[in-house]
C-alpha cells in the first residue's frame, strides 16, 4: 500500500511532509529518545523514494534538511553532531565511490587523503606552523579557512597522483594492498613526524585549530540574535557540510555522465577493451585517484576545523574500511547508494551502538535482573559502542554474499557484478 501511495505525487507529498512534521514534533517532545529521531531520519529516506515533481521534492528536502534538522539540532545538540558527521562521511563515501565504484580501483587507504587535508589546515590554522617555519606569523586568520578548502583539494589531489603514478601498473588485489600500505605509511608518518622537525606534533596531536569566521555576526545582531559561538558553530558547520555535500553530489552527477565517467566505467568493466577503444588508461586512472582524493581533502579541512583538535587516531585503517563498507552497503557506483550507506553506517555507529551502550550501563547500574541473571554481574569491558569493526565486517561479508550490487544499485548495471557464476 505504501509503495502505491508513494507512486502518486499528491498523496506522496502529503504523506512525506506529514511524517516529517510529526516525527520532528516527536523529537521536540521527547528530545532524548533515539527511536523517535530514527523515525525522523526514516521519513527523510521515504522522501527519496516518493515520486513527486522535482521542484516540490527540492522544496521538501530543503524543509527537512535546511529547516527541521537545524531546529532539532538546537533542541538536542548531539543530533546536530550526528548530522554533521553523517555529512562528512557522505562526502567521503562519494569521493571513494569515484575510485572504487566508478573506476573499479579498490583503494584501502582512502583515509590517507582525508588526513592530508585535515593536517594541511591543522598545521597552518594553528600555532603548529611556527615550529616549522619559525617566527610568530601563524596561525593564519580564520578567513584563510575558506582558502584552505581549496588548498585541501589541491594537496589531496597531489597526494592521489603521487600514489597513483607508481601503482597504476598493478591490478586488483595488489593495488588494494599497496593503497593499504600507503594509508598506513601516512598514519605512521603523522605519528612520528614530531622529530627531527616537528610537523605533526606526533601522537599528541595538534590543537587549537582555527574555526571559520562568523562573518555574518553583525547581521545576526542587527536582527536581534545573540551570536554566541557555542550556539552558532554547530549550525554554521552543519551549513558548511551541507554545502560541501551539495557540491560533491553535483560534481559526482556531472562526472558520472561525462565522457570521463564513461571512461572510468569502461576501465572498470574491461580494461583491455577500454584501451582498445582509445581510453587513455593512465590519465583516466590518475584522474580517478585525484578526483576521489580531492573530496576527501576538502572534507578533511572541514573536519579539522570542526574538531579543533586532531591526532593520528582519527585516520586509521578502520576508517578506510568504514567508508568502504558504506559504499558497498549502498551500492558501488551509485550516488544515492553512497549517501544512504554513509548515513546508515554513521547512524549505526554514533547512535545505535552508543545508545545500546548507555542503555546497557543504565540497566547494569540499576541492577536489573533478566531471566534470573543480574546485570550488575555483566563484565564492564563489554561496551557495544566499541564494536564498530563487527558491524563493518558483517556488512562487507553479507553484502558480498547476498547482494553485491548494494541496496540502491547503480542505474547502469554492473556487468562485472552480474557476471555469470559458473
Amino acid at each position: 500500500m505504501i509503495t502505491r501511495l508513494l507512486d502518486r505525487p499528491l498523496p506522496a507529498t502529503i504523506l512525506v511532509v506529514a511524517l516529517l512534521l510529526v516525527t520532528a514534533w516527536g523529537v521536540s517532545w521527547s528530545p532524548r529518545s533515539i527511536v523517535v529521531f530514527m523515525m525522523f531520519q526514516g521519513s527523510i529516506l521515504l522522501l527519496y523514494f516518493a515520486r513527486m515533481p522535482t521542484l516540490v521534492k527540492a522544496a521538501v528536502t530543503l524543509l527537512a534538511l535546511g529547516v527541521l534538522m537545524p531546529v532539532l539540532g538546537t533542541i538536542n545538540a548531539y543530533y546536530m553532531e550526528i548530522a554533521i558527521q553523517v555529512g562528512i562521511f557522505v562526502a567521503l563515501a562519494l569521493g571513494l565511490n569515484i575510485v572504487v565504484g566508478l573506476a573499479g580501483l579498490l583503494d584501502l587507504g582512502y583515509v590517507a587523503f582525508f588526513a592530508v587535508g585535515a593536517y594541511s589546515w591543522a598545521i597552518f590554522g594553528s600555532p603548529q606552523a611556527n615550529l616549522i617555519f619559525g617566527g610568530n606569523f601563524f596561525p593564519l586568520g580564520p578567513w584563510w579557512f575558506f582558502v584552505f578548502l581549496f588548498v585541501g583539494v589541491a594537496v589531496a589531489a597531489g597526494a592521489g597522483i603521487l600514489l597513483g603514478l607508481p601503482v597504476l601498473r598493478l591490478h586488483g588485489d595488489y593495488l588494494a594492498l599497496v593503497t593499504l600500505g600507503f594509508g598506513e605509511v601516512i598514519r605512521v608518518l603523522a605519528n612520528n613526524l614530531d622529530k627531527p622537525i616537528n610537523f605533526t606534533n606526533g601522537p599528541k596531536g595538534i590543537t587549537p585549530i582555527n574555526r571559520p569566521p562568523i562573518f555574518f555576526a553583525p547581521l545576526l545582531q542587527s536582527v536581534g540574535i545573540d551570536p554566541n559561538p557555542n550556539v552558532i558553530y554547530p549550525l554554521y558547520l552543519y551549513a558548511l557540510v551541507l554545502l560541501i555535500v551539495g557540491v560533491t553530489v553535483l560534481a559526482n552527477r556531472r562526472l558520472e555522465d561525462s565522457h570521463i565517467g564513461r571512461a572510468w566505467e569502461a576501465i572498470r568493466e574491461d580494461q583491455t577493451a577500454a584501451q582498445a577503444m582509445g581510453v587513455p588508461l593512465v590519465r583516466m586512472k590518475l584522474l580517478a585517484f585525484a578526483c576521489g582524493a580531492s573530496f576527501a581533502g576538502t572534507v578533511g579541512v572541514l573536519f579539522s576545523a570542526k574538531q579543533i583538535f586532531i591526532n593520528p587516531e582519527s585516520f586509521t585503517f578502520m576508517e578506510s574500511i568504514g567508508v568502504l563498507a558504506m559504499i558497498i552497503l549502498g551500492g558501488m557506483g551509485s550516488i544515492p547508494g553512497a549517501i544512504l550507506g554513509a548515513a546508515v553506517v554513521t547512524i549505526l555507529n554514533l547512535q545505535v551502538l552508543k545508545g545500546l551502550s548507555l542503555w546497557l550501563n543504565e540497566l547494569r547500574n540499576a541492577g536489573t535482573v533478566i531471566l534470573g541473571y543480574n546485570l550488575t554481574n555483566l563484565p564492564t569491558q563489554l561496551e557495544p559502542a566499541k564494536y564498530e569493526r563487527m558491524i563493518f565486517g558483517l556488512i562487507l561479508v553479507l553484502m558480498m554474499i547476498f547482494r553485491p550490487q548494494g541496496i540502491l544499485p547503480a542505474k547502469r548495471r554492473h556487468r562485472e557484478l552480474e557476471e555469470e557464476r559458473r
Partner: protein
Amino acid sequence: MDFELLIGILPQVLLDGIILGFMYALLALGYTMVYGVLEFINFAHSEIFIIGAFVGVEILLSFKSAGWLDVLPWPLILVIIMVAGMAVSGVVAMVIERAAYRPLRHAPRLIPLISAIGVSFFLQDVIRLFESLWRNSFNLVYPTMDVLNHRFELTETIDVSVKSLVVIGAALLMLWSLHTLVNRTKVGKAMRAVAEDQAAASLMGINVNRIISLTFLIGGAMGGGAGVLFGVQYSLINPYTGFIPGLKAFTAAVLGGIGNVPGAMLGGLVLGLLEAFAASYLSLLTGGAFGAEYKDIFAFSILILILIFRPKGLLGEIVRERA
C-alpha cells in the same frame, strides 16, 4: 658514530631478525598456499593467527589456575598448546572458507577480497567480545614459565633465551613437515595439481573442494602455530595484534614470490632480518632522527617496490592474471 657499538650488537640483531623471520615465514605460508590454489589474498589469515595465540594463552591461564603449570613438564605443556592452537586455527580457517569464500569462488576478483576483509574485521571483534565476556579483559599476557626465560650467555653482550631456541626449533619442525607434506605425499601432489589447473585436476579424479578445504586447514594450522609461538616469544596479545604481522607476512610472501612455498620461507626470513636491522640501526645511523617506529614504513616500502619492479618476487614464477 660508534663503529664498535654497531658491530657489537650485530649478533643480537641477527638473532632477533631470525626469530621474527621464522614467525613471518610460518604466517606467510598461509597466505601463499591459499594464493597458490585460489589466487586470492586471505585477508583473515592474521586473525586466524591471533586466534591461535588466544587458544594458547587460555590453556596456559587455566593450567595456571589449576596449579598444573609447575607440575607438568614444560615440553609437554608447549606441545599441548601448540597442538591445540594449530587445531583450532585450522578448523576456523576451514569454516571461514566454507562460509565466506566458497559461495564467491567464481565471482570477480575483488568480491572475495572484500569479503575476506569483512571476515577479518568481524573476527577481531568476535575475539574481543568473547574475551570481554569470559575474562572481562581482552589484553592478555602469557603466563611466564621460568624454564623458558632462562638465558644462556654466549658472550658478554649476547645471550639467547630458551624460548627463542624453542621458537626457532618449532618453526623449523613445522616448515620441514610442510615441505615434506607438499612434496613427498599424495595429498601434496593433489594440492599442487589443484594449484596448477583446477579443471584438469578434477578430471584426474581429485576432489577439488576437499583439497581447497585441506589447504585452508593446513595453512590455518601453520598460522595458529605461529600465533602460539608469537605469544610465547612476545607475551602481550590483544585481538588487534595480528593485523600488522599479518600484513608484513603477506609482504614476505610477495617478496619470496606468492604461491611459492620455499619462497614464502625465504621471504619471511629476509623481511624479518631487514626489519630487525631497521629497528636497531635506523635510529643509530641517523642520530636519533628516525626511530624504530619507521620499521613499519620500511616493510611497506619493500612491498611497494617489489610489486612495482619484480612482481614475481625473489623465487616466484610470473603471476597469471585472472580477469
